[in-house]
């Protein structure tokens, strides 16, 4: 039997509800159809076809391969002999990403229940199963490494804590994966984050891991990516319909999701690519990677949908020069608040690479690192650690100053109701303004600190509140040996 012959019989399954009210069965908060008429959904067509029968066969084979490789490399027990920079990248990835895969199960399940098209509801079932696969592969891999590195406990633990970076990830992803309508989620997650950003990230990271000698990690990333490419395409038909019927909503949603994804990438990908990946293995800088893949892809998507470039495009391009350098500096300086050991990534050799890739690096960042290096070499370690919290954005939750550099640092504030809100950038401020009620009730880490939720109100209290235990608390990955490059 040819799949195409019975396919419509399996997917055109809408009927007129008689025993419940349609609006009760498909509340708009979950469906998200808004101004789009119900007739528009008849044209929703999935970009890939799959039969359940093929799915279980292909996925079974894939897993047999992926788990066999995993087992083989588990026995090799070589993880702790890998470059500390790569280890940092792997630990950052697992802590920040494993739970997100499981959250995506919920999002796909939401599509399977509340999406306004039965075709979409069906295809989401594969997405839901895929995300279970990804979560479980990540967990299986991480669990194997527990004996060698307790930091991999954070594959499960991270999202149960108040670690500040995780809270930033959650602010974006609890919203889009767990608290948004199907239409919004499809555009923000499938189309922008998954298809645009993470699809590329997984490819690059898999290659980097392989180069670093971490075949096991590379293997699962590549295997995961084969599914991602498939189910991320769900975003396209939905975005197309949205753009046709509610252009402004489509434009705003794409612009907001692109910026929020960028900030996530400034945090998770930028430092990993430009500071943790061993310098001799770096194929592209973060800026090069973003420009070649993400920018190109996103502009094509906008063009296909007849939408314009984001209004903040110039700021976006400028942020590619700086955002991740800022976050890296912040993460390294506040390293006790991390669950892994970050590399500084500013030895002489690495610094040369940074300067070559980012001509403004010395003036924006080198000056600041030089003072840190002086303190390290003089043994003034107290000055190489922070004594307070940085100011934080009330939208992306990341420190003010980490969208650009110190020369562009200025306040962005909004007073809404009784509260003053701070933002790291104009786009974050704009996103808040699109739907203040969605964001106004939230308290960032500084707000919670001032409200007395962190006790005692010092570093130790903060570390405990964030769930950071002594066996994982971050310190320099190379024990500051690189600073000798600068010692007189």
């Amino acid at each position, binding site marked *: 039997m040819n799949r195409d012959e019975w396919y419509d019989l399996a997917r055109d399954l809408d009927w007129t509800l008689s025993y419940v009210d349609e609006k009760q069965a498909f509340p708009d908060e979950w469906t998200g159809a808004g101004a789009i008429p119900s007739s528009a959904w008849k044209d929703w067509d999935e970009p890939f076809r799959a039969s359940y029968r093929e799915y279980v066969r292909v996925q079974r084979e894939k897993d047999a391969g992926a788990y066999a490789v995993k087992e083989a490399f588990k026995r090799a027990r070589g993880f702790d002999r890998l470059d500390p920079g790569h280890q940092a990248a792997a630990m950052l990835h697992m802590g920040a990403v494993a739970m997100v895969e499981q959250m995506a199960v919920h999002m796909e399940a939401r599509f399977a229940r509340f999406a306004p098209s039965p075709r979409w509801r069906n295809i989401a079932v594969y997405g839901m199963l895929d995300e279970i696969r990804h979560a479980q592969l990540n967990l299986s891999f991480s669990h194997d490494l*527990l004996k060698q590195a307790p930091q991999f406990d954070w594959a499960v633990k991270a999202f149960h804590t108040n670690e500040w970076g995780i809270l930033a990830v959650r602010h974006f992803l609890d919203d889009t994966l767990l608290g948004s309508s199907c239409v919004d989620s499809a555009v923000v997650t499938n189309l922008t984050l998954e298809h645009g950003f993470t699809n590329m990230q997984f490819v690059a990271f898999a290659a980097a891991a392989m180069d670093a000698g971490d075949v096991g990690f590379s293997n699962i990333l590549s295997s995961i990516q084969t599914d991602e490419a498939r189910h991320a395409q769900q975003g396209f038909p939905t975005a197309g319909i949205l753009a046709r019927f509610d252009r402004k909503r489509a434009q705003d949603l794409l612009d907001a999701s692109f910026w929020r994804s960028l900030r996530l990438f400034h945090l998770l990908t930028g430092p990993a690519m430009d500071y943790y990946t061993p310098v001799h293995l770096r194929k592209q800088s973060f800026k090069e990677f973003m420009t070649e893949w993400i920018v190109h892809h996103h502009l094509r998507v906008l063009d296909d949908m007849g939408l314009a470039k984001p209004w903040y495009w110039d700021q976006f391009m400028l942020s590619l020069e700086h955002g991740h350098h800022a976050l890296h500096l912040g993460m390294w300086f506040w390293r006790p608040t991390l669950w892994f050991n970050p590399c500084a990534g500013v030895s002489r050799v690495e610094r040369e690479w940074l300067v070559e890739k980012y001509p403004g690096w010395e003036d924006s960042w080198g000056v600041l690192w030089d003072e840190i290096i002086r303190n390290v070499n003089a043994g003034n370690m107290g000055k190489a650690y922070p004594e307070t919290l940085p100011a934080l954005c009330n939208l992306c939750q990341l420190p003010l100053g980490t969208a650009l550099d110190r020369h562009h640092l200025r306040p962005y504030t909004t007073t809404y109701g009784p509260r003053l809100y701070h933002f790291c950038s104009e786009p974050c401020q704009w996103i808040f303004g699109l739907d203040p009620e969605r964001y106004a009730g939230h308290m960032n880490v500084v707000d919670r600190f001032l409200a007395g939720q962190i006790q005692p109100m010092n570093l130790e209290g903060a570390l405990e509140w964030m769930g950071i235990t002594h066996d994982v608390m971050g310190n320099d990955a190379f024990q500051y040996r690189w600073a000798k490059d600068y010692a007189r």
Partner: protein
Amino acid sequence: MGETRKDAARGRLRTWSALGELGRTPTEYEIVTHAMNHTTTRPLPLEMGPETFGNRYLRRHRDEAAISVPDWNRFRDPDEMTYRKYNRVQDEAETFVDRVLDEYADRRRTDLGHAPEWLDGLEAMLTPQRFAVHGLQMSAAYLAQIAPASYIGNAAAFQTGDELRRVQRLAQRTLQLRLAHPERAFGKKDRERWERDRDWQGARRAIERIFVARDWDEAFVALNLVVKPAFDAVFLAGLSALARRHGDEVDALLLENLLADSQRSARWSRALARFAVDQRPDNRTALRIHLATWRPLGDELIAGGSTLLARFGSVGDDGAVARGALDALAAEAGVG
């Protein structure tokens, strides 16, 4: 164990800290399923404002549900289903069904040999099921997203996959029957039957009503302890036996194979209800209240379905058998 004293001294973990003191090696199932819902263990589920829709919804329909236990992460699916295991099991089941459909229906064209009365029966009972099962699929997906623990949500997600499987197999049968009998209404009037046939309305009403059961515990009882087992008792078990009596081995074998998925659902559902009652005996009351609400809809579904079966030659009381199955499920679940 999470860690021995020696391990703790060396900062080594043998398993997730979240698993705590298990007193044994965790199973692969536990390793990949445990504590994978970070929104259930804090007063504010989502990292959003407290009064945003998502937070209000989860608090109201999940965290403030009538049934509660100290820790839903202690629940275990008796089948210990993981993604890997699911595809292994279902790939084998699908291989069997492939052979049945390819060998018999396609190659031997057994559909051509059915009596007109049985073809009437298939038009009435088999092919319109696609719509009903799509509804069951949707509600299983609801459970997957609203469940208070990943142990429960994953089981519901696999159940959703099972329903998709069933819809597609029914779609294939619809196509085969249409090709064999183009003069009939296979695949052309199924929606109409689902929406209009008197004997289908019990099922349609029950399936639609679940769409507005928002509290996770009510949705669970409604779907997995009443409506789905009722539906499957009639339209899988009952119809399979009837098909066999009519010499329709293809549909008998297909429906029997699909019944295995249904039985898996019953196993974890029974276990979940048992677990809730064992952990907190008061939960029995809440579960029984839900059952009392939904059982009448289940009975109506059974009544309509049994009438259908009887119209096409079923002997014996299919209704009593199906109702008995519901009673037995409730009893084994500890909420009879």
